[in-house]
């Protein structure tokens, strides 16, 4: 099914099932420990051997000497894989897959040096510790601030260009009566999902099956095939349940590749999980940024010039953090520019983390807007409303937004949160030893769609079975697929069985970039639409006005049960949704606004969030319960980004030194107050047949700025260097009496 024109009325609009708050269909399995995660497929491989990865202890250099004798002789050890005996590997593949242990070169800390396989996990780990490695360290580039001057203009990242310009920014900014020129920095951040990267690899002759924890099984399939020099059709990737990803599992890391190589060599299933510390340096992270914002405005608050420049770093060949991207779309203004510059760093590979681009871009932009409002003596909400645009400000009215309720989000939130009580003068509100502040920030997240297929089967019992390679990374996709199929086929959700996360099933969009539910759900829609037509024809109905309800098809006063139309072996159809150029003709994004109240301790500068409310407009909300969970999860991550999350770089050794969850702080329950999420009514018929937009990442977009703006309102201290830890605020607080 091609989606080239705005969706008309379709069965989803009935909203008998879609649009309602349903519990997760996989919830009972998860809470009772029966959902099988990658490391737990014991029945599929009862004889699996256990692998343990030894990572490099240096940031950059090469292995000079490697003594594996003791490890090889250790009890239970079956194999010690190193660059000396690793098989030849193919070139870089999909999902950023790259060869592992292909040479003595160490590309970054915890780049694999050896992989020990043994009869038990404990034996493998102990033997790995017996391996003696001597390195030659090489000087590396580990400091973004130092390398900023060497940053170069990178190749476009997908559709994101390094540089954009409309009008004459420099002249426009110079001529602006009110000017703001500020620089913000954000640190490297780690995804910190619960389930580590884990893989079980099983070979059947020359066919490989990997059970792994991956958001994009088809990318992993192709990436693995490329590295192992196989046909993709000989690789099957299964990711049935995923304990969180946030982008960390979009890609292929050592666990998948090395486990597959070792299992092939041993002719025996092998499994491994990365340790928590290894995740920080071996896999990816959200790269640090330096962001300069320049905004010029008229005295009454109209933005005339807006420029956003970003510097970040990555390994050679790595991509850049698209932190200025949202600045092209969020506010009006005649003269505009964005620019990204990328320095080569020898730190671990940086890559996507929840809302790549916007998550950190808005932490700078939405604080800069707050700063501008203060300079203009304007209310920050009024400033945003004044500069709202209903079309792409780079192209003009010929490219309108498909839907945009940014102003409504701000107004609704202001009303519900009690914005009117905020004193614009900082430091005026107190509650005991707390200074109280209120802040706001806008949210935007690009709406991405990806082609996606599904197979729908009607079985002779009248059950509907939905299959695709889609993944549910804790987002609720199983439930949303069940809702869509139930809605389309006119059956209760209990009559729908959803299977996903298997590359032997039709290729779905996968989970990333908030495209998952909307894209893969549209694939399910397309397959159901096809099945409806087949069934209507079988029943002798005219497909266009047949009603599917109560387990029956009806037309006029004639009706037929679904099960009576299924073949004995079931009736299966497959279809794919393919998104055309509507994203070119219409600017598409989800919008929101965050309202935050913080307390700053007068004595210690500790910051604690007291209230956080988000208003979101993201098209049709397919399941308000799972969507709300996505939002509060994103808001929680936003609090973390604002106040505590930071991979600390040891620039002497070139690695993230706080590589565990004791020292890399994410919010705990006590950091999270009551949170509220309000969804605005919206249907976006240019986004998909479901009329939904991305929601999974919107919750994090802008939260950091709302917190930082609240901190400023509380104590009058503007910190432009995230996270806002107490040591940065403390020197600016008034002396103790």
């Amino acid at each position, binding site marked *: 099914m091609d989606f080239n024109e705005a969706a008309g009325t379709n069965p989803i609009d009935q909203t008998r099932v879609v649009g309602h708050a349903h519990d997760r269909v996989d919830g009972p399995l998860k809470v009772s420990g029966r959902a099988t995660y990658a490391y737990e497929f014991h029945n599929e491989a009862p004889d699996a051997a256990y692998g343990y990865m030894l990572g490099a*202890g240096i940031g950059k250099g090469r292995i000079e000497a490697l003594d594996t004798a003791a490890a090889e002789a250790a009890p239970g050890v079956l194999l010690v894989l190193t660059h000396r005996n690793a098989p030849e590997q193919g070139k870089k593949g999909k999902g950023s897959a790259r060869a592992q242990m292909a040479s003595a070169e160490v590309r970054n800390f915890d780049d694999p040096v050896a992989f020990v396989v043994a009869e038990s996990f404990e034996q493998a780990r102990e033997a790995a510790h017996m391996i003696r490695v001597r390195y030659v360290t090489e000087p590396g580039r580990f400091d973004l601030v130092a390398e900023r001057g060497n940053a170069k203009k990178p190749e476009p990242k997908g559709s994101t260009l390094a540089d954009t310009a409309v009008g004459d920014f420099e002249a426009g900014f110079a001529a602006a009566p009110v000017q703001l020129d500020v620089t913000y920095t954000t640190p490297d951040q780690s995804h910190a999902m619960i389930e580590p990267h884990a893989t079980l690899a099983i070979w059947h002759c020359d066919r490989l099956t990997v059970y792994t924890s991956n958001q994009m099984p088809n990318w992993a399939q192709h990436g693995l095939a490329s590295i192992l020099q196989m046909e993709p059709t000989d690789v099957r990737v299964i990711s049935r349940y995923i304990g969180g990803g946030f982008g960390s599992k979009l890609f292929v890391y050592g666990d998948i590749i090395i486990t597959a190589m070792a299992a092939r060599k041993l002719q025996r299933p092998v499994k491994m999980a990365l340790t928590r510390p290894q995740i920080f340096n071996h896999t990816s992270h959200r790269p640090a940024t330096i962001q300069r914002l320049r905004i010029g405005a008229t005295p009454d608050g109209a933005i005339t010039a807006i420029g956003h420049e970003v510097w970040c770093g990555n390994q050679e060949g790595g991509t850049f953090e698209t932190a200025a991207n949202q600045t092209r779309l969020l506010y009006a203004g005649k003269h505009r520019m964005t620019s990204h510059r990328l320095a080569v760093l020898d730190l671990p590979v940086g890559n996507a983390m929840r809302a790549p681009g916007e998550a950190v871009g808005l932490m700078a932009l939405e604080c800069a807007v707050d700063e501008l409002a203060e300079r203009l003596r304007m209310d920050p909400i009024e400033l945003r409303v004044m500069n709202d645009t209903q079309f792409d400000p780079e192209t003009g009215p010929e490219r309108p937004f498909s839907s945009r309720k940014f102003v409504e989000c701000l107004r609704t939130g202001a009303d519900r949160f009690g914005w009117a009580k905020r004193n614009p003068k900082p430091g005026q509100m107190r509650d005991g030893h707390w200074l109280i502040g209120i802040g706001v920030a806008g949210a935007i997240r690009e709406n991405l769609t990806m082609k996606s297929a599904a197979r729908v089967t009607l079985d002779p019992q009248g059950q509907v079975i939905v299959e695709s390679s889609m993944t549910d990374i804790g987002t609720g996709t199983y439930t949303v697929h069940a809702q869509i199929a139930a809605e389309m086929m006119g059956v209760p959700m209990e009559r729908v069985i959803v299977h996903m996360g298997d590359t032997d099933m039709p290729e779905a969009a996968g989970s990333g970039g908030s495209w998952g539910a909307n894209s893969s759900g549209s694939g399910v829609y397309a397959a159901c639409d096809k099945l409806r037509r087949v069934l209507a024809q079988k029943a002798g109905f005219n497909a266009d006005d047949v009603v599917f309800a109560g387990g029956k098809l009806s037309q006029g006063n004639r009706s037929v049960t679904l099960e009576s139309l299924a073949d004995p072996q079931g009736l299966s159809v497959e279809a794919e949704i393919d998104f055309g150029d509507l994203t070119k003709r219409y600017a598409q994004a989800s919008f929101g606004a965050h309202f935050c109240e913080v307390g700053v301790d007068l*004595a210690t500068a500790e910051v604690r969030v007291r209230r956080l409310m988000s208003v979101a407009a993201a098209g049709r909300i397919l399941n308000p319960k799972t969507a709300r969970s996505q939002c509060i999860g994103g808001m929680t991550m936003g609090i973390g980004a604002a106040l505590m999350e930071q991979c600390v770089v040891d620039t002497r050794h070139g690695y993230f030194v706080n590589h565990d969850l004791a020292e890399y702080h994410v919010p705990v329950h*006590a950091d999270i107050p009551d949170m509220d999420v309000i969804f605005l009514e919206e249907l976006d018929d240019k986004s998909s047949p479901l009329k939904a937009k991305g929601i999974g990442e919107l919750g994090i977009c802008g939260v950091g700025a709302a917190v930082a703006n609240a901190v400023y309102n509380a104590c009058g201290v503007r910190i432009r260097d995230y996270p806002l830890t107490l040591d940065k605020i403390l020197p600016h607080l008034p002396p103790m009496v």
Partner: protein
Amino acid sequence: MKAFTYERVASPRAAAEAVRRNPGAKFIAGGTNLLDLMKLQIEVPTHLIDVNHVGLDTIEATPEGGLRIGALVRNTDLAADRRVRRDYAVLSRAIVAGASAQLRNRATTAGNLLQRSRCSYFYDTTKPCNKRAPGSGCSAIGGFSRNLAVIGVSDACISQHPSDMSVAMRLLDATIETVMPDGASRSIAIDGFHTLPGDTPHVETVLQPGEFITGVVLPKPLGGKHVYRKVRDRASYAFATVSVAAVITGDRARFAFGGVATRPWRVTEAETRYGDGAQAVADTALQGATPTRENAFKIPLLQRTLAAVISDIKA
């Protein structure tokens, strides 16, 4: 983790005998710190003596009017004890400010006294650390030191002592009772229990090899107002950036500090300056501090926190 042998003992005497037979042994109680360190091969005992079944899990009144806390009393139980909450509130508050409920349910009184460093380089076996590998050097000096000690440090080690409970124990002048492998017992005043790193940061207490803690004795209650104020980067489940334990009775005060030093920090001379205000107390307590560039903020932070604690108590 290295393979090890394991035995369970049923009495303190059996624990002493077991350790005499196995010089490479370690006692394990809650295991909340030791097991993590074994997984990383920072601790490599060849034999574990499980002391969870030796008794020593009650809190008894002493004839002197204090309390004897069994070594195996869990942190949760100690913090919740009615007598502790009434008479030693600073101890109760310090304990609940630490770790998480799950960890406190497991962790024991003796184990808490013996918590090891949380310095990132101590945990990272690819880097030099004098505490983990004596003589290899200190990676924290010149490295990531934001949360490390500013006082009591040496050129060999700047790691901070992580325990909240021990700060309160130090304030209360607790005494640690032990039994030696030969069966002899002794009492160690807490001010002499934890050692400064000096040239031997791998030595953290005066305990002899195989010496087994049987309990901790608190002297009779001090009365007064008790406060434990822990400052940290998130609201729970974080080690102290700085902490202040205080007991104030009229014009007399006791203070002990966490997060700033290589052991629970108390300077009795500083307490004599109480009448001169928080600044004077903090200045005296931190006299001679040598912070790094990253953790210099702990000095003004401690002063301010102390000022807030005193002002709260007076209010």
